[in-house]
């Protein structure tokens, strides 16, 4: 397949721009653990940056004898109070890492995988349209977030209100990703015509499953954003139905998890066995898994709302059962991937019951991608088990909204998902730029260093969570502020867990720094060959055709039926238990925004409380 310049630059842009933003998001993560443990109460780097820019501007103004720039005054009046900075950074951390980076990667990966496996060229015009819409959306939401007008965290629960650009930007990011995926449909149709009766390549099926789930799920959040939040944030509507907004959000919020996970599964099924030196144990198992995700990813959202009012316990139970059903494809994957690795280990000369485990390329510099996948899979053992705890109805009461939850999801989205995406980003950027991956020893060390860090971090967070330590809370100024000792606010018993999480977080940050050095070093290295695109393609060890798994349409239809059945009663309950709508609030003030503006208009000084 010919790689046009436009095609190469499209994928490179979709990988490099979010990677630059990820640097900021990851730095935000470091600040989080330090703030939480009470080690820092301001961001030294941010202060230095603001001070430097302010000083430079002032010097320039003096030099030209101009009046003082209004920007200087604006910069010096930035509110650096730590309780503002913590939630500002947490919003950036969540949105840039878990929404922007993942969405761009999934589209970029699909843009590489679908043409490669279908041997059809990508329509780069539509590809670029999708990328530009996504970039504009990210830019708009970025303006709102960086300027401190959207510190509502990545769940943006109303009635805390963000700047309209935040909602508009999020909507554009989603629409851009739809365009990117829609671009693959004509390619599939053409392939179908040219290859009648053939099985769709497993990797392509996986990417279609990913984006079918994404499309259905994002419809709900699009309704929330476009019909409830955007008009309300623009002031066109007075108030918003909060329970309804929450239900619409979580219809999207759980399948989002599978949107993150499935591109990693595509790599595990279709590429990992080859890199390990073996074959995929069962092709049919892979297809079954993707179909099961289409069926059960979405009708499960209420398991994020076990603690919410307005949803009957019987419907919460129904969503529990369906969530257990969606755990099955991951258990099947655990078996299939382990069996594929065993086959590879034995091909490499491993003997005996466990001998094959020691014959895998854990530290191979040639097959460096393997380290990103295997480290992610090891982390996912704990991520999967803790996820089942969260989904477990009444068991959830012990962990809901405690720091157990971020402990859990750093073992999933910041485990197998992150590492697979990092490895593949480096792999694709190097190939499409005609570069050699630099410092492969360091590249191989990254996932293992990350594994150590994230396990320590999550252990601290989860253990603390079981003792009631809350998530997304600036503990350094609350329960762990030494000034508050002796009051009921102070919780000495949480301190060790916040400190353990901090140690883990620092190691995670070090691993990411090392990765960025390798990634950007490779990007700016000398070109050594022609740009190319080549994936490791695993053959199947068992390759029996299962006709029912070849067509996705019937499964999608079944999924829609399941969704309607599981969500109709939930929405009915939500609507009948929601008695009044809520006006908008800004995170900095404990009165409605309207009242706040009224007060300011009357010339009274309103003092924000901290």
């Amino acid at each position, binding site marked *: 397949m010919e790689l046009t310049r436009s095609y190469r630059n499209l994928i490179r842009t979709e990988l490099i721009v979010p990677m630059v933003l990820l640097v900021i998001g990851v730095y935000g993560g470091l600040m989080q653990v330090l703030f939480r443990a009470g080690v820092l109460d301001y961001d030294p780097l941010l202060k230095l940056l603001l001070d430097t820019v302010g000083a430079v501007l002032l010097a320039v103004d003096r030099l030209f004898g101009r009046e003082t720039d209004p920007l200087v005054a604006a910069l010096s009046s930035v509110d650096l109070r730590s*309780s503002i900075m913590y939630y500002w950074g947490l919003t950036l951390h969540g949105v840039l890492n878990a929404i922007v980076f993942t969405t761009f990667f999934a589209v970029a990966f699909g843009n590489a995988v679908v043409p490669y496996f279908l041997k059809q060229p990508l329509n780069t015009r539509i590809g670029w349209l999708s990328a530009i819409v996504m970039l504009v959306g990210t830019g708009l939401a970025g303006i709102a977030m960086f300027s401190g007008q959207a510190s509502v965290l990545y769940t943006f*629960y109303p009635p805390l209100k963000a700047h309209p650009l935040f909602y508009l930007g999020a909507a554009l990011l989603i629409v851009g990703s739809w365009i990117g995926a829609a671009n693959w449909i004509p390619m599939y149709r053409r392939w179908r015509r040219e290859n009648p009766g053939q099985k769709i390549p497993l990797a392509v099926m996986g990417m279609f499953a990913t984006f079918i789930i994404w499309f259905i799920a994002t419809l709900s959040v699009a309704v929330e954003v476009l019909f409830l939040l955007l008009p309300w944030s623009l002031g066109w509507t007075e108030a918003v139905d*909060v329970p309804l907004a929450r239900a619409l959000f979580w219809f999207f919020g759980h399948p989002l998890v599978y949107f993150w996970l499935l591109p990693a599964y595509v790599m595990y099924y279709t590429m990992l066995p080859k890199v390990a030196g073996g074959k995929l144990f*069962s092709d049919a198992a892979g297809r079954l898994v993707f179909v099961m995700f289409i069926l059960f990813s979405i009708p499960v959202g209420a398991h994020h709302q076990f603690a919410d009012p307005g949803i009957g316990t019987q419907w919460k139970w129904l969503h529990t059962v369906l969530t257990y059903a969606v755990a099955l494809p991951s258990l099947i994957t655990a078996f299939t991937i382990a069996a594929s690795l065993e086959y590879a280990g034995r091909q490499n000369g491993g003997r005996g019951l466990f001998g094959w485990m020691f014959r895998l390329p854990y530290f191979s510099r040639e097959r460096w991608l393997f380290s990103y996948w295997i480290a992610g899979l090891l982390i996912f053992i704990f991520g999967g088990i803790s996820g089942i705890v969260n989904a477990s109805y009444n068991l959830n009461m012990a962990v809901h909204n405690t720091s157990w939850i971020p402990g859990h999801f750093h073992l999933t989205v910041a485990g197998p998902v992150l590492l697979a995406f990092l490895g593949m980003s480096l792999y694709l950027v190097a190939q499409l730029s005609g570069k050699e991956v630099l410092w492969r020893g360091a590249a191989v060390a990254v996932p293992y260093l990350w594994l150590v860090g994230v396990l320590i971090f999550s252990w601290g967070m989860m253990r603390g969570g079981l003792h*009631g330590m809350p998530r997304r809370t600036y503990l350094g100024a609350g329960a762990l502020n030494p000034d508050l000792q002796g009051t009921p606010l102070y*919780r000495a018993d949480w301190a060790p867990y916040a400190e353990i999480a901090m140690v883990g977080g620092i190691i995670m940050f070090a691993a990411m720094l090392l990765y960025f050095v390798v990634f950007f070093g490779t990007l700016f290295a000398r070109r050594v060959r022609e740009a190319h695109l080549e994936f490791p393609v695993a053959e199947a060890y068992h390759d029996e055709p299962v006709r029912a798994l070849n067509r996705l349409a019937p499964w999608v239809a079944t999924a829609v039926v399941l969704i309607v059945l599981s969500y109709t009663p939930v929405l009915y309950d939500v609507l009948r238990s929601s008695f009044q709508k*809520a006006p908008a609030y800004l995170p900095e003030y404990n009165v409605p925004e309207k009242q706040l503006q009224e007060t300011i208009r009357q010339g009274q000084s309103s003092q924000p409380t901290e």
Partner: protein
Amino acid sequence: MVRSERVIFGLSGAVMALFLVGLLVLATGFGVDVPGCVTEMKPFEQDTLFQTGDRRWELHVVARMWAYQMPAVELPAGSELDIYLTSGDVVHGFHIDRTNVNLMAVPGAVTYARVRFSEPGEYPIVCHEYCGIGHQQMVGVIRIVQ
């Protein structure tokens, strides 16, 4: 599908089913349940605490930025407490330490939980949902005496 696959997929399903049975037993036999859909009480502005029976009390809490509007609660050990919770502004959390009371306070709706305090002591309450810049200060306490 080969035999080992069939066996392992069947076992996975069986384990998950067993877990579900465990949860159901916990919910029905031991009364550890999640909050349901409350339609008989509308969101309220006023907090209160009153006795409804021998060792039974009812507590109404309004969560607000950034404190719980609730009366001082000091009850004898062995008391059973019916808690009704709503929010006066944004979304808040309500987690009573060392109990299974873990609720979201959502504006426009009311939620409910029942808890029995058998051990005397102080039971801190924390807000565990981000509710603005004062979130980390939002706490409460329930005191149980002999």
